[in-house]
């Protein structure tokens, strides 16, 4: 067992109080006997309980999940949403046995884990999928440590509960010191069937938004700006394709009404392992009154950096340390990027004591920088976010919200006032695209002058009155002396058509180019530039290999498995292609991936092997 040699103090209180009590009561093994399979009846409990050891069994079954007075069909693993925490130890072998008790195929992808490609869990790329009633065994000896997660890669199952966290404890001493840890697994719940969501997105642009511009809105847009958006046939409020109230935002399966409490003792260093396991939602995460020290990104240790807020893209993870010195209750507030809703939990020193949650801030608007225009005021920011005076927050240990009056009227949209409104403004100049991009109806925009915006903290946070994380603040903990220069460079365009809800790489949907993968030689060193020719932020995920984000940190470039490419902008990574086999590469917005924003990456086997 891997858990026995860990200090107890660190291990206690993982997950929620509710999860602890239910775990202690020994759950009925309905999920383990298959009684729930194919039926909607079984009530799903809210996660998260922990599994560890040399043999771990995951049972995927149907169930019924509810929060906030709404309930619907869910796919639960071992009877909970999220599914269990898989806790492993670096270097110690485990056999993960996945039992599919659904009446459709299923799969589990181990997001961020390095392992032979045939166990990566993507049906059609790494294996054929797990048939109903079948079992799939994955022998795994972790060669890494950190916070990761797992989820289905079949159909749209991820939307309805088929996901959970992974923690791999390091073989040696953990460079991160902490007294207590909690998983903060962010996700969504909706009673609408995901296939129905997909259709609505396809046929009705903006279907889920209740924050669109109208004759009576309060958005700081001039009539001229409104006409400009209309002329482009785009909406400045196109920030989240699916949002509240369709979604209830969850932390560890708990909606705001569920009142999740996570305990702490004053003075403890509390490690929050934040995982964005949602299908479609970027979250702005903050604990008003409690600075967060980011120590890990995507499972990889980084040099500690203290911030007050961070935006986490779908599929990313951040580990942060908070140190509440006094008794009280702090709000763990994860506001959706479009500010339509918030996932909530209380970090509390006394059971029953709940935090006061900050109100939702005004929704942000897209700006000219999001259209791919080089504009200094767009918040692209070559400079890291400027730390603010935080003396005013010292009193906030009781869960006070950070004063936010300053941001109330400071929409990012205001910098569009400076925009060139001339009719010559071409939003779709396809001559700017390289020959590799297939031009067609699936491309509604071409970024005119895409800038690297890794210094951008995320939509709506560029004028926050406090310190916000951005990618340029991420430096790997260890220096990398042996970094190779890239052997070659590639450019890949993220393309789409919002109105038709078409999404693709280089204008080609996966359905059209699946048999023509992106090919890498074995152990190549490739620099890939991702250019976002759309007005949405895309979290791009490469399976099987970490890449290093080119963020100006030289030998400390952080390793990541998922990178947000900001609207109308670029992001660049270096990758050493030393993991042979076929891997998935896709936008981690679930419905974008299913619309075609995906490709296979084929890494050659070493010479002499094949």
């Amino acid at each position, binding site marked *: 067992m891997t858990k026995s040699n860990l200090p107890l103090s660190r291990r206690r209180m993982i997950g929620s109080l509710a999860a602890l009590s239910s775990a202690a009561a020994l759950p009925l093994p309905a999920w383990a006997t298959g009684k729930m399979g194919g039926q909607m009846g079984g009530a799903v409990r809210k996660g998260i309980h922990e599994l560890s050891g040399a043999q771990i069994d995951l049972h995927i079954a149907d169930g019924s999940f509810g929060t906030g007075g709404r309930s619907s069909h869910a796919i639960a693993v071992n009877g909970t949403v999220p599914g269990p925490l898989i806790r492993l130890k670096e270097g110690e072998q485990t*056999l993960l046995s996945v039992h599919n008790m659904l009446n459709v*195929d299923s799969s589990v992808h181990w997001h961020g884990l*390095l392992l032979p*490609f*045939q166990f990566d869990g993507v*049906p*059609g*790329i790494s*294996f*054929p*999928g797990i*048939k109903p009633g079948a079992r*799939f065994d994955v*022998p795994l000896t972790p*060669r890494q440590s950190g916070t990761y997660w797992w989820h289905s890669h*079949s*159909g749209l199952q991820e939307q309805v509960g088929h996901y959970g966290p992974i923690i791999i404890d390091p073989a040696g001493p953990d460079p991160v010191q902490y007294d207590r840890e909690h998983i903060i697994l962010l996700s969504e719940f909706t009673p609408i069937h995901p*296939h129905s969501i997909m259709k609505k997105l396809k*046929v009705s642009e903006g279907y889920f938004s*209740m924050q669109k511009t109208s004759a009576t809105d309060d958005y700081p847009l001039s009539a001229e700006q409104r*006409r400009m958006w209309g*002329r*482009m*046939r785009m909406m400045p409020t196109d920030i989240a394709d699916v949002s509240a109230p369709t979604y209830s935002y969850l932390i560890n399966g708990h909606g705001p009404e569920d009142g999740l409490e996570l305990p702490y003792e004053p003075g403890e260093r509390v490690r929050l392992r934040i995982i964005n396991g949602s299908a479609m939602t970027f979250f702005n995460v903050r604990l008003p009154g409690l600075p967060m020290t980011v120590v890990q990104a995507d499972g*990889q*240790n*980084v040099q500690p950096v203290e911030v007050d807020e961070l935006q986490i893209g779908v599929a990313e993870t951040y580990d942060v340390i908070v140190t509440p010195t006094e008794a009280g209750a702090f709000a763990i507030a994860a506001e959706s990027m479009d500010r339509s809703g918030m996932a909530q939990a209380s970090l509390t020193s006394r059971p029953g004591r709940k935090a006061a949650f900050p109100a939702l801030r005004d929704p942000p608007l897209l700006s000219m920088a999001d259209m791919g225009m080089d504009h200094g005021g767009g918040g692209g920011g070559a400079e890291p976010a400027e730390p603010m005076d935080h003396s005013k927050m010292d009193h906030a240990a009781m869960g006070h919200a950070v004063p936010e009056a300053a941001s109330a009227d400071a929409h990012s949209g205001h910098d569009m006032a400076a925009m060139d409104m001339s009719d010559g403004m071409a939003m779709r100049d396809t001559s700017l695209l390289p020959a590799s991009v297939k031009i*067609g*109806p699936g491309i*509604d925009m071409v970024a005119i002058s895409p800038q690297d915006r890794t210094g951008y903290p995320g939509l709506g946070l560029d004028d926050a009155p406090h310190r916000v994380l951005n990618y340029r603040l991420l430096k*790997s*903990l*260890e220096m*990398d002396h*042996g970094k*190779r220069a890239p*052997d070659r460079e590639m450019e890949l365009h993220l393309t789409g058509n919002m*109105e*038709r809800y078409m999404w*693709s790489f280089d204008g080609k949907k*996966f*359905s*059209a180019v*699946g048999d*023509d993968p992106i090919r890498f*030689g074995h*152990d190549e060193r490739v620099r890939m530039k991702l250019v976002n020719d759309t007005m949405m932020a895309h979290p791009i995920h490469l399976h099987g290999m970490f890449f*290093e984000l080119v963020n100006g940190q030289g030998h400390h470039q952080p*390793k990541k498995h998922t990178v947000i490419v900001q609207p109308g902008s670029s992001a660049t990574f270096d990758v050493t292609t*030393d993991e*042979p*086999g*076929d891997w998935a590469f896709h936008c981690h917005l679930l419905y974008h*991936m299913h619309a075609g924003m*995906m490709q296979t990456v084929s890494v*050659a*086997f*070493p010479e002499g*092997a*094949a």
Partner: protein
Amino acid sequence: MRLISASLAAMIAATPALAQDHNQMDHGASKMPAAPEAEPAVDHSKMDHDAMGHAPPASPQASPANNLTGPPDAADAIWGAEAMRASRKALYQDHGDIQILWVQGDRLEYRARQGNDGYLWDVQGYYGGDINKFWFKSEGEGSFGEPVESAEAQALYSRAIAPFFDLQAGIRQDLAGPERTHAVIGVQGLMPYMFEVDAAAFLSTKGDLTARIEAEYDQRLSQRLTLQPRAEINLSAQEIPELGIGSGIDNIELGLRLRYEIAREFAPYVGIEQEWKLGGSGDFARLAGEDASVTNYVVGVRFWF
């Protein structure tokens, strides 16, 4: 929609004998049979420091050329080409090749006016993917207590030709009045400033050439309340006496509808629409004892599914 799950179902049906052979897997790569899959277990010692943010050290060897060709098939040797083929097909289909059925009643309304009150329907829909669709349209109107005044159905092939526009071609069958079938060619889409436009030309079996241009604009008043101005103009290249159509501009309709979206899919509305028959068409109307100008007060519902 089940359209998406259909591919999943196909995947299940097509691969009954999926290789779930656990003997192969239990011991990881070490016991893998064929060559490629033995390789993932190659020396990973150089990755041991991954957790510390290290990159693999520089490799002395030059990067080999990209020596793979053809479809990705690394998994075939491990799980069987047959099983992979089926799952691969389903994967591609599931990621970008979704077929959708959409039906919209844009206007289904009761029309109060001088004389006999009337009714109108204007329905359309499609089945297909992002680029190619089968598109159907039907519209018609009449007065209560009288035969249907006009009715037609169109069956069109629709192809996306630009980000916001489809080219449509097919046939139109008139279902009321003199027997007529038309060849149709048109465009439908979204103009700059968010005007929805549907413009088509019709060549009838009698050799008559006519055209129709419709435009709608949605002005949101709130998140659920929308004011929709609408204009329609019908043109004819020649006089068609048996249809009461003069050459040139046949008629113009201007409407204003206020709808409330109880759901996006279901929105009752009230409105007003003014129709003018112009030129020769106006003369035909007056000869028939009808008004060349009609004001309709409408109540109806817009829906889609």
